[in-house]
Structures are given as structure tokens and as C-alpha cells.
């Protein structure tokens, strides 16, 4: 039961509780008033004589103006304003939030931590720290819903959406899929484990991650032959990716912001936005790389803003280029054969 529960009060949740119950009280009062007035009229003005004709008053301009302006000016505008404020709080993560990547598919939630830990239908987070989820779906639309945190965000295919939360107190909380997604929609649930920081550290150490998400991405970067063209010395046939993330990239016909969606699109549909001065020679990786691996690659590319990559170029890259040089055409019909 979470009526007024004090177990867990992040800012959003506290604001929500205050606002929600203020509205319940306000609307409840008005609704009760109307109901009471209806009952009062039905009894007090009940028909006593079958032929009676009551006074025929039918219009009162001041009354009309009152009940047009009163709700609008005092209630509706306040509700709109506060609802919007709260919404902006929910939708805009704080700058220091830690990223966790979530891939939704029919019918499970897969989470990947920056440190490389992977989970299915569960998500471990430290208490008291803002966590930002970057989410994408492999198939239909899903929705990431944690009632206790008062957050919900649809998870779309082919596009990252973001939600954040900050859980103040340790505990276990429901995760639901809130957008209908097929047969086992009601089984697409999980748990959010909020842990005290030291317990969280212990969990990380026993998590069994084989290196960070970025290092997984680095391996993939070589496996898929990306490094053959995207060289870090600037002499490759493809753009140098160091410091790419968050930059404005000049492309044919304008600029593009190099965010997660841009990097993902450039892997799967390289010709959509060609960097100015380069040729459209990159093959598509559509159908050859999973959403999880794309996320690892993105994490790797995001990590490339230090001097660290210089040493990477010396690594012997296992080349599987022959495979990827022949672009398999992605046919829309493939989608429905599953």
C-alpha cells in the first residue's frame, strides 16, 4: 500500500504526492458539493402539485460569468502550471545522472550498466543517486513504468527515449510494462532493487562483468571491422571518432548532433547522414548487430574523448570485414516472419 507511504521520497515522488492529493481534495470537495446540491434540489423542490408551474427564471449573466471564470482562473491555470512544472522535472534528468541502458523486447527488460553488468527483468541501482535510463525497443512499443517512483516512459523501436529517477531509500519496487505489447504483456514485469551504496558496491563486485560496457564496445569495434576505416590517426577512409559524442557534425545539407540516435543511425543506416567530405562507402549493419551491441559501441564511442584510444590503434584487429563488406539488404518483410 502506498497511500502516503514515507518509505521512499525522491523529489518527484514527493511533489507528485502533494499535488495529487491536493487535487483529490479540491475536486472531491467540488464534486461532493455538486452532488449534495443535486440531492438538495431534488428533495427541496420536489413537485408537490401536478399542475404547478415554478418561476421561469432562465438566465443570470453574473452567475454564468462566475462559473466560467472561477474554474478557469483559479483552478485550471494552477493545475496546468504545476502539472507542467512537475512534468519538466520528470522529463529532464539532472546532469550528474548515471547512465543505464535498457533494451526492451517481447517480453523482457534487459539492462546494461556502464560497468558491464547485465541484468534481465531486474535493475540494481544505488540509493540516493540519480539514474538516467536510455531505452530502446527491439520490436513493438513498450513502456517503462515504476509506480513507486511515479515515472513512466514509452520505449520505442529504432529510437532512444530517456527517463530518470532518484530513489532515496533502499527497497524493492515493481517494474511494469505499461504499453500493450502482445501475448505476455502482463508478464513483462520486473523489479527495481534500490541498494545502499556499500551494498551496491558489493553487488557490482560480484556481478561478474567481463569488463566495462565501453571495453565490450571496443572489442566489437574491432570485430565488426569498424577500426579499419575509422582510424584514430585521421588517415582512415572514414571520420575519426575521437571526441565525436555530443559534437555538431557537418553533413550534406546541414548539421547533425552526434547523440545516441545519430550514432545508432550511422551504424544501421550509414548513408542517411554522410559526414561532409566523406564518401558513402560504409555498408549497413542492419540485421547483423543487436541492440545490446549497438549500445556497447555507443558507450565505447562516448568514451573516446580522452587520450586513451591512441593505444587501441596498436591492437591487432580481428578482421571480419569480408562478411560486412557485402551489405545484406534489409527487407521490411523480414520483420513479419518472426
Amino acid at each position, binding site marked *: 500500500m502506498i497511500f502516503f507511504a514515507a518509505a521512499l521520497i525522491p523529489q518527484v515522488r514527493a511533489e*507528485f504526492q502533494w*499535488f*495529487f492529493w491536493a*487535487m483529490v481534495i479540491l*475536486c472531491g470537495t467540488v*464534486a461532493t458539493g*455538486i*452532488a449534495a*446540491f*443535486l440531492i438538495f*434540489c431534488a428533495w427541496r*423542490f*420536489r*413537485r408537490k402539485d401536478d*399542475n*404547478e408551474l*415554478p*418561476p*421561469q*427564471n*432562465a*438566465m*443570470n449573466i453574473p*452567475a*454564468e460569468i462566475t*462559473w*466560467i471564470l472561477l*474554474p478557469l482562473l483559479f483552478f*485550471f491555470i494552477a*493545475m*496546468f502550471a*504545476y*502539472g507542467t512544472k*512537475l*512534468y519538466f522535472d*520528470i522529463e529532464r534528468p539532472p546532469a550528474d545522472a548515471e547512465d543505464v541502458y535498457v533494451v526492451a523486447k517481447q517480453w523482457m527488460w534487459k539492462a546494461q550498466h556502464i560497468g558491464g553488468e547485465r541484468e534481465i527483468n531486474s535493475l540494481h541501482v544505488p540509493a540516493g543517486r540519480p539514474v538516467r535510463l536510455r531505452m530502446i525497443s527491439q*520490436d*513493438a*512499443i513498450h513502456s517503462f*513504468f515504476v*509506480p513507486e517512483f511515479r515515472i*513512466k*516512459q*514509452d520505449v*520505442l*523501436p529504432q529510437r532512444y527515449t530517456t527517463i530518470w529517477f532518484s530513489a532515496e531509500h533502499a527497497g524493492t519496487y*515493481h517494474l511494469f510494462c*505499461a*504499453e*500493450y*505489447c*502482445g*501475448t*505476455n504483456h*502482463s*508478464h513483462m514485469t520486473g523489479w527495481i532493487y534500490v541498494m545502499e551504496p556499500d551494498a551496491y558496491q558489493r553487488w557490482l563486485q560480484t556481478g561478474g562483468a567481463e569488463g566495462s560496457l565501453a571495453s565490450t564496445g571496443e572489442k566489437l569495434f574491432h570485430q565488426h571491422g569498424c577500426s579499419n576505416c575509422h582510424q584514430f590517426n585521421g588517415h582512415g577512409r572514414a571520420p575519426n571518432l575521437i571526441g565525436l559524442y555530443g559534437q555538431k557534425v557537418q553533413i550534406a545539407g546541414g548539421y547533425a548532433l552526434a547523440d545516441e540516435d545519430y550514432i545508432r543511425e550511422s551504424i544501421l543506416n550509414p548513408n542517411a547522414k554522410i559526414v561532409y567530405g566523406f564518401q558513402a562507402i560504409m555498408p549497413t549493419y542492419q540485421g547483423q548487430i543487436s541492440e545490446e551491441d549497438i549500445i556497447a559501441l555507443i558507450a565505447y564511442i562516448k568514451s573516446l574523448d580522452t587520450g586513451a584510444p591512441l593505444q587501441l590503434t596498436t591492437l591487432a584487429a580481428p578482421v571480419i570485414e569480408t562478411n560486412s563488406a557485402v551489405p545484406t539488404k534489409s527487407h*521490411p*518483410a523480414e*520483420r*513479419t516472419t518472426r
Partner: protein
Amino acid sequence: MMSTIAVRPPVVTDYLNAEHGILSWLLTTDHKRIGLLYLFSITAFFFLGGVFALLMRLQLLVPGGLIVDPDTYNKLFTMHGITMVWFFLIPSIPNTLGNFFIPMMIGAKDLAFPKLNLLSWYVFMLGGFTTLYAIVRGGVDTGWTFYAPFSTAYSKTYVVAAAVGIFIAGFSSIMTGLNFIATIHRMRAPGLTWFRLPIFIWSMYATSLILVLATPVLAITLATLGIERIFHVGIFDPAMGGDPLLFQHLFWFYSHPAVYIMVLPAMGVVSEIIPTFSRKPLFGYKAVAFSSMAIAIVGFLVWGHHMFVAGMSLYSAMVFSFLSYLVALPSAIKVFNWTATMYKGSVKMTAPMLYAIGFIGVFTIGGMTGLFLAAMGIDVHVTDTYFVVAHFHYIMVGGAVMAFLGGIHYWWPKISGKMYPEYLAQLSALTVFLGFNLTFFPQFILGYLGMPRRYATYPPEFQVWNVLSTAGATILGVGYIVPLIYLLWSWKYGQDAPSNPWRTTGLEWKTPSPPPKHNFENTPVVTWNAYDFEAQKEELHLG
């Protein structure tokens, strides 16, 4: 002039016995008979959708699901939604009571296009049978919202057949709306100016505007969805560069106004019942009339509030939120004016009046929870949960269906020429009110607690509210079946109805019950305002 309280003369030809035989019904162009054809059809669809709903409520009695597997449950809620929305609620009041009473209330012999009216029924039935085919073949599991890309690429059920059925039924909506607009504009009796029209006519006019302007958008959206599903090309699937949010925008551009298609006529019915049984003109006539139009117009600009968590931009969400508060205003105006009408009136508690008062109470709750959903920060938590389910059932079931039942009782003497059994009717009205609130109020709580909608199974902590809701649904079911039985009974065995049993003012009460084929022997000339008891008090023997 006919005495308004006179009992029907023994031998007259009315619209029911003017012609005989099944063909005289199937080929009729009489708006009253077509209204009855619609009434029978949508009643059948209503009980079909009701059976789906009861099965769903049974399933949710226990957390693990009581009777069916998740696939079947998904089909149940989809078919419940499709049947109820497109084959009951959208046509409910407009195509039955609207068809029957618009010409009579404006003093016309028929609608502007009687053949088109009949055609609309056939088109409706064709759409209905196509959808039934989809149901019989195994059903649809997309939800009534058909969200892409689930509907275009992942569902393995009869999506195309269901979409085609809705597509076809849409044209029936368009024909009806077109017919009503043309009729209300051009067929009014001499002297019946716009501001003398009963509010029912105003709300049917507003409804018709939505029908003709919103329905085609749904039609083309569903057609595109069908093409995408069959040929694997299209504009919604993101795998092909499409934007699934475009589908949602187009869908809600129809489906939000569609809610007003359901509730505006209901408001119109209530605006007739309350003055009649308060024996007073409707308070703030012009405010109520204009508020119908405001709802129809602003209602087209608020669809985005269904998509606050769907991934759209914060600032467009803000605009939609603001407009959603604006559209709440005209509804509030109506509620205040209805209650003010009863104040210092001469209130008689009949079954229609019980339904009307129940409507106001329930609609107020439904509307006010809409304010919660329009507040974006709250919507994030409660959208796609049972809170939304409860909210729109308060509008559609508590609002539209109760007003529909109220209207059927109110005009039953005119339609059938017989009185319904009053005490039984009041009892079942109370049953509907109690059953309804017991069914849907717990769902607000479930939604607040976080139970998502469209769940075939749920965590055990939600069970108690689900059990309450199911208990309410059985009561509600009884409340719906009883009127069906006694209304059919009264058609044959009821007391003959006088031409104006409620002693009220509308033109429809100035013809015999049931009315003759062409409604009025002579086109009436109107010299009074709507609900003008003062002007008609001699005729009505009042005062």
C-alpha cells in the same frame, strides 16, 4: 389543435402500422424506422461487448487469471473495445434517438436525405458483420487502439478484417453526420430559429461536425495500416523509416474527438430531461448551446494529451495540456447550468430524471479525473493504468450509456406508444448507478496504485480492488438486462401512452404517440423558445 394530454385515438395510422412486412422495414426511408433498426442492431452489439467485459472481469478475479490464457484475454479486451466504441457508443444516441427525434424536434417530415440514411444503416451492418467475421475467425489482439508497429508487424490475428470493418462503419458515421448537418441547417420549421432549437439539436449538430471531420482521418489511417500489414510497405513501421508516433497522432486526432461524439449527444439528452422534469427552461440556454460548439471545436486540438509519455516534445505536450484544460471548461459550464435548472424548479423524480441526475454526478467525476490526466506530471504516473480505464468508463459508461438509457426511457412513450413500468425502471436505474460505481471506482484506486491496463494477470496486492470491481460488474450487468426485458414487455403489454405524457414543450410531443409516418400533418409554425413552459401553459394546463 390536439389536446396534449389526450389518449391516443383508437384507430390511427402511425409509423409502426403504416406498412407491414419485413421488407417494409428493410427498405424503409422513414427516419423513425431506421432509428429503430439502429436501436436493435446496437443493442445486440452492446450485449456482445458486455459479454466480453464480463469475461474480462471474471478473469481478473484472481491474480493469476481465472478463466483464459493471456492471448485470449488480449483478444477479449480488444474486441470489447472495438465493439463498444464503434458499434455501440459512436452510433448509440445519434443513430437511434438522433435519427428518430431530430426531424420531429425541428418540425420536419424526415431527414434531408432519407435514402442516404437507410444506406448508412446497411453500411453500418456491413462493417459490423466484417468485424464479427474477424471475431468469429479468432479475434484481434491489438487493443482497440491498433498501435503500430505491433498491429502492422507483430500481431498474428485478424487485424485487417477488423480494421476493414471499422473502416466501413466509418462511412456510416460520415453519412449520418452529413445528413444531420444538412437537416438541421435547412429543414427547420418556420419560426424555429437557431436559438429556439432544443439543446439536443445543438449537441447533435456539434456531434455531426465531429463525425464528418474526424472520421475520414481514421478511415485513411486504418487503410494505411491495412496496406502496411499486407504489403509490408507504409508509413508507420520504424523499421521502414516510419514514425509510430505519427500513427498515434492520426489515431487520436480521430479518437479523442470520438469521445465527444459519445458524450455530446448524452449531454443533449440530459439537457432535454432536466428541463422537462424540473418544469423550467434550461438555465443559461445560450451558454449551454455555445459550450457544445466549443467542445466540438476545441476537442479537435487536444489529442496530444494521450501521448505525454509516448516520446513527444515537452513543449508540444505543454500546449496540449493547456488546451485540454480549456476543453474542460464548457463541460463544467453545462454541469453548473443543469444544476441551476433544477434549483427552484418543480422536480419530479422519474426514471429518466434519475438517469439524468446520475449522469451529472458520474460525469462530474469522469470530467474531474480528466483534469488529473491533463496535468502532465500526474498523467505520467496514471496514464496507461486503470486510472485511465476508470476515467473513460466514467465518461462513456457512466456518462454516455446512462444518458442513452435515460433518453430511451424519456422518449419510449413516443417511440413505442406505450408507457414503461415506472417503479421497475427507477429500481433498475438505481441498480445501474450503484453497479457502475462499484465497478469503476475501485479502478481509480488500482490505477493510482500502479496497475497497468490490459494485464491478463497482476500482482496479488491488487486483488481486493479487482474483486470489488468484478462484483460491481455483475450488478451492472443485471441493471442492463432488466430494462431490456421490461421495455420489450411494455411494447406489447404496456399502457398506451398519451401524446405528451410528461407535459413538456418540445415539438416531438405535439404529435400522437407513436407518431404518424410523416410526423406532422401540417408543418408547425414555432413562435416560442425552447423549454418555454410559460408560452405553452394554456396548452399544457399548467399554473
